[in-house]
């Protein structure tokens, strides 16, 4: 059963993809699917196999075993069909000497087979979308990282592909540029593009992705929305209650419930690992208040995303 992100037909689908470099298993049996219009975040530390699997999707690398399907076409058997539908932004952006931004984009537009007015219009639209119209005449070497990243996104968008593969687009960007990038990706997703985006920093992606997959040493360890992963990995949220002069009694009442475990009392504070949902949490509060206990505070803490990430990958990272 292939985990699918989003609803409807899958546009990106990896089927048991393996890629070996000698003894290194860069990608080791990865399967997942992403439905049209969804944004899937691909998270893992350096060397996890993100770039390799994205290059396989972009038809630049062949899987040692398995296949990847983009919009119904196999990257192994029909790479040209895949290429027409796919915009790829690699982690390193290639630039040319003696070329300005407009010429650079124009060249790729030509390479994608756009001609005449279609090309000029597309070029204008891409420059506007990426906010690079002001730097069109500037030489591409010597642009700031953020500007280069815009041009590279523009290049990937030149042929208006339905699928975007973005390899660590936010790496090395200042916060402002990162926010701009997030806006652009949001706009693209709203246009119905299917996006696969990678990062080694979970928080970078959490807000823009419908779902994330956590990859480590070539294996996909978990997939789902950020909340789903948190629920999967951490059944117990931590509840902390402050009960004025009634902590012991509160702890006793909580002990009668079966969704509260590991109850500890420290002065006015009661801590418990809690496995219920939000409704159950409200229930706990009502219980205590109805019993006449003076509950002054209640905080529920889910583990931070980084915690989840560390927990998910623990034991594999030395």
């Amino acid at each position, binding site marked *: 059963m292939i985990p699918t992100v989003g609803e409807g037909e899958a546009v990106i689908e990896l089927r048991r993809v393996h890629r070996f470099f000698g003894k290194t298993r860069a990608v080791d049996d990865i399967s997942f699917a992403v439905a049209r219009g969804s944004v899937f975040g691909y998270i893992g530390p350096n060397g996890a196999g993100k770039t390799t699997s994205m290059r396989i999707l972009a038809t630049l690398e062949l899987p040692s075993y398995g296949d990847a399907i983009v919009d119904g076409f196999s990257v192994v058997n029909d790479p040209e*069909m895949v290429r027409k539908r796919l915009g790829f932004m690699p982690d390193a952006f290639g630039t040319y000497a003696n070329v300005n931004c407009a010429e650079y984009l124009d060249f790729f537009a030509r390479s994608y087979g756009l001609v005449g007015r279609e090309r000029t219009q597309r070029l204008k639209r891409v420059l506007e979308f990426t906010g690079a119209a002001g730097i069109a005449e500037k030489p591409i070497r010597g642009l700031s990282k953020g500007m280069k990243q815009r041009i590279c996104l523009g290049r990937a968008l030149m042929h208006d592909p339905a699928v975007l593969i973005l390899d660590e687009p936010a790496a090395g960007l200042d916060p402002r540029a990162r926010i701009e990038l997030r806006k652009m990706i949001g706009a693209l997703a709203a246009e119905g593009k299917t996006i696969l985006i990678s990062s080694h920093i979970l928080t970078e992606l959490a807000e823009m992705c419908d779902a994330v997959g956590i990859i480590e040493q070539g294996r996909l360890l978990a997939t789902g929305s950020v909340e789903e992963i948190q629920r999967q990995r951490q059944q117990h949220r931590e509840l902390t209650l402050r009960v004025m002069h009634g902590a012991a009694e509160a702890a006793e009442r909580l002990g009668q419930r079966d969704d509260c475990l590991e109850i500890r009392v420290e002065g006015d504070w009661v801590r418990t690992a809690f496995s219920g949902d939000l409704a159950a949490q409200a229930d706990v509060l009502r219980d205590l208040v109805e019993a006449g206990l003076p509950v002054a505070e209640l905080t529920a803490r889910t583990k931070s995303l980084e915690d989840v990430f560390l927990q998910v990958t623990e034991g594999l990272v030395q």
Partner: protein
Amino acid sequence: MTGRTMERLDRWTERMGDWLNPILVKETRQTLKSRQFIVTFSLLLLAAWGWTAAAIAMSMPRIYYVPSGQPMLVGYYLVLAVPMLLVVPLAAHRSLAAEVDDGTLDLLSVTNLSPLQIITGKLASGGLQMMLYFVALMPCVAFCYVLRGVDLMTIGTLLGGTAEVATLLTVVGLFLAALPSGRGGQFVMMVVMLILIGIAEFAFGGFAIGMITQGGGEASGEWIFGIVASLLFTATVSAILLIAAAVQLAPPSENRSTPLRRALLVHQTAMTGCLAYAMLVLEADWQVIVPCVYYAAALWAVIGALMVGESGVLTPRVRRDLPGTFLGRALAVWLTPGPGTGLVFSVSCMLLFSLAAIGLLILSPSAPGDAIDRTLPHALTLGGYLMLFLSVTRWIMQLIRLRSVTHPGVAVAVLGLVASVAAIAPYSAALHLHDYRSFPWSHWQLTNWAWTIVELESGLSSDVPYLVFGSGATLFALNVVLLGRAVLPQRVATPERVLAERAAAERAAAERAAAEKSLAEGATVGFDSGAMR
């Protein structure tokens, strides 16, 4: 009026640009802005003017009554050779190598550009630069003609030949840049490139200067044949190298073998044709045949090794494009990728060429009676060794492929190893047995191809070539029977979606062409009516 013309010109260039290779458009923009080009171009002009002034000053009074075109032209050739034979090929090599280095090749690969378009775009850009250098030097060349002493044929051959050699070097540069290599490999490629350029400068330079000073070029049949044959050679070899470079850049699931095999067939056919014309019509010396057989053997050894090193697994993508009919598949089977078909393909090409060579000797009016007896041993021995070593190489590659994925290039190394061992092992053994004193050839040295070939001329017993050929043929037959099982590959159906997509793309292209046409007609009509008003 001028505004209008300009506008039309603009529109026209725009439209032309759409049809040009995008790489050519980009590289031209880059070149015109690059310091390297500007410096080379200015230096070329400066050197040409400098030489003109110096040469005129040196031959001052005589220049009015003695034809002085020759030394002038030699100087201009030397000035032209630097950008043509050095700068342009190196720039093309660096330009493709840089695309690989900077990762821009990946960006190009995911566009609609085919690998062959990428390569030919680079070649075209080199050609454009050559043309600019030519144009810059044109007045000087015309000046030489005015000074008398050189005829048009010489000038034409000189310029054409320079362009031909420069093109070939550029193609080689692109080929070397496309070969898979790490950082260290790139340095090696650069060195190889420089050595080849050095050889070409010397060889062609010697030819060019000799031709200018001795005035080689009268329009005889032989001269024209030489030009045609050299053009055919350059064209077919360039095609092979360009296709070889392109398949290096193509996705690994692509059929990387069949286009190359076709190009090789064309090359061999063209060269055989030239040889036949030379032997039968021009009655060339029959002794050219033997070097040609050696050339064929060397070619098919390297190519054969590469093909023997191919993977035996046909990807579905390759099998889709197999001929549709059983007969078609049976005929095209030796063009289908794979080590077994590769072995048979290269051996049969070699044998076919040898047969053609012998046939030419029989037909040739000028070959002496013993010509065949003196050529056949070479052909048999070389064919035998080719079958022997390629068969062994194929077996070794089969073993290697059982354990790991390898590159066909490895097979060339394996062939080299096999051939070296086959030559050195019996030699060292015999040397040891003879207490390190000199000893004569014996049948123990049969696998020692180097010595056997050398001995062929000094009269080995006449059974040796047959022995070599026989043992080679035995191994070859064994190979084909044991491992070949020349099962016809099964064709697989192309998925409906792919067919539909292709049909749609064709329809769109046709529609676009129609729209273009009507637009162009509309534009002309509009212009005419405008002019009438």
